[in-house]
């Protein structure tokens, strides 16, 4: 993947969070889904069949933005505001009831 982001780079990113352990800067007022899209053009999750997905509707309808947030699985990224030191993990595979999707 060579596309860093499908969006223009923004000034004033002041919130520090992690995505799969990697430190990433986001903007105050961002949703988790917006922060993921701003950071990378890559998938934010893999489906049960292993297909890459990113947020699609940004308004809580499509559930394609599901990620793990601070250990809680299946969180709607577009409905969740970023916080300082938030730990986001990208789900890989079928939805599970517990967090830590690497074991899924």
């Amino acid at each position, binding site marked *: 993947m060579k596309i860093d982001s*499908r969006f*223009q780079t923004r000034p004033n990113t002041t919130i520090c969070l992690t995505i799969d352990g990697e430190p990433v800067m986001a903007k105050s007022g961002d949703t988790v889904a*917006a922060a993921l899209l701003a950071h990378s053009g890559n998938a934010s999750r893999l489906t049960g069949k292993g*297909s890459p997905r990113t947020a699609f*509707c*940004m308004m809580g*309808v499509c*559930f394609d933005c599901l990620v793990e947030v601070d250990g809680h699985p299946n969180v709607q990224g577009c409905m969740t505001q970023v916080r300082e030191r938030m730990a986001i993990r990208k789900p890989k595979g079928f939805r599970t009831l517990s967090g830590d999707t690497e074991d899924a």
Partner: protein
Amino acid sequence: MPDVDIIIIGAGPAGMAAAATAANEGAKVLLLDEQPQAGGQIYRNVENNVGNSVDANAVDYLGKDYTAGNSLVQALEHSNITVKFGATVWRLDEGPRVVWSQNGISQVSLAKHVLLATGAQERPVPFPGWTLPGVMSAGASQILMKTSSLLPRDAVLAGSGPLLYLIAAQMIKAGAPPKALVETQTLKMLLGASRYFPRALLAAPTLFKGLSLLGKIKAAGVKRYTSASSFRAIAEDDGSITFSFDSKGRRNSLSTPLLLTHQGVVPSTHMSRASGISHEWNELQGAFQPITNEWGQTELQGFHVAGDGAGIGGAETAKAAGRLAAFDILYQLSHLSQNSRDQKSKIDRKAFNRALSIRPLLDALYAPLPEFLSPPDETIVCRCEEVTAAEVRQSLNLGAHGPRQVKTDIRAGMGPCQGRMCDLTVRGILVASGAKPSPARARSPIKPIKLGELANLKIPEDSL
């Protein structure tokens, strides 16, 4: 005992206008919305953007029609209005009784009356490749502009509808012009829509706004393709999208980091369907809508619906509809006499009819293409459960004749979005095969909640 007079669900133009109207007449209102601020999708984050000096140019490129929504948000500062944000309603019962979740805790609220103002969602635009990273709905990119100052890089806008032009003009103003505008409407659709033109003249200012948007797109030199069809997107090794389509007898191919599609909006009806309100098919708008009278009253005692959730009319229509519904509810709760309801609502009735007069023209001119209603076999129809159009067709061949059988057979609509992204496509495939399907069933909880949250729910005894 009811907690309040009226619970309004949704703080978009209809819900906000209704809340202020009811509060000004002395009714106690509880306004619930899933988002962190009032505004709905159209005025999303408007209060923050208007008051923001860091990204001051956002209000500039989003435009005056957007910032005008701030007055509705400010009107919610009223001692009779309690607003709860991050509040997801997941069940409605007769009573009326509203069950909603906030911060992982669910609770029951009782009211004398409920107004559903749940708005619209974008119509799903399924085609081969629409699930790839780098393909989003155009409305999603506009939300990113409103909430995160996130501007698309060399995007291609594809589809049709007034929102597509508005977003293109906003992108141009923001210094992020689209690489191309690929439009699906045809000359045949234009001719078919022309009979609605005289009525649309009643909304002349809206027509002129549309023409001025087209002028801005033309002046910016954005490449335009029309009569486009046979959409297909594939992902290249570098993550970019190759978008191909037919236009005027030629196959075209565009490379872009971001493909943004749009085919209009449809009412969000999960809540109204799950509460047992009857729905009807609106042929011109190609969507189901709750059956209401001229005030938004449904057949279910104590439930009104207003705004795009009752049928697509746009923000101006929604504001008027919200006020009309509020006046009627106030009359039913004996806050107003029938005569004063009729007197006070005269202006809004006029505004409602005027704003709505342009819709038939827009609905006919920017109708979705058949290929998005019943897409090619390899297209994923149900994004959650990864079910293709071929599998839906196979299910029909095996005897399924309605959305419930298709769902039971191949899980289309059984994922976390609960059919919001595939109901209309499953229906389109059924219709193309000759069936006349009823609306898909929606059941509580209409948004996923955790079992622990359900177990901890306390139901007030007098509401049982």
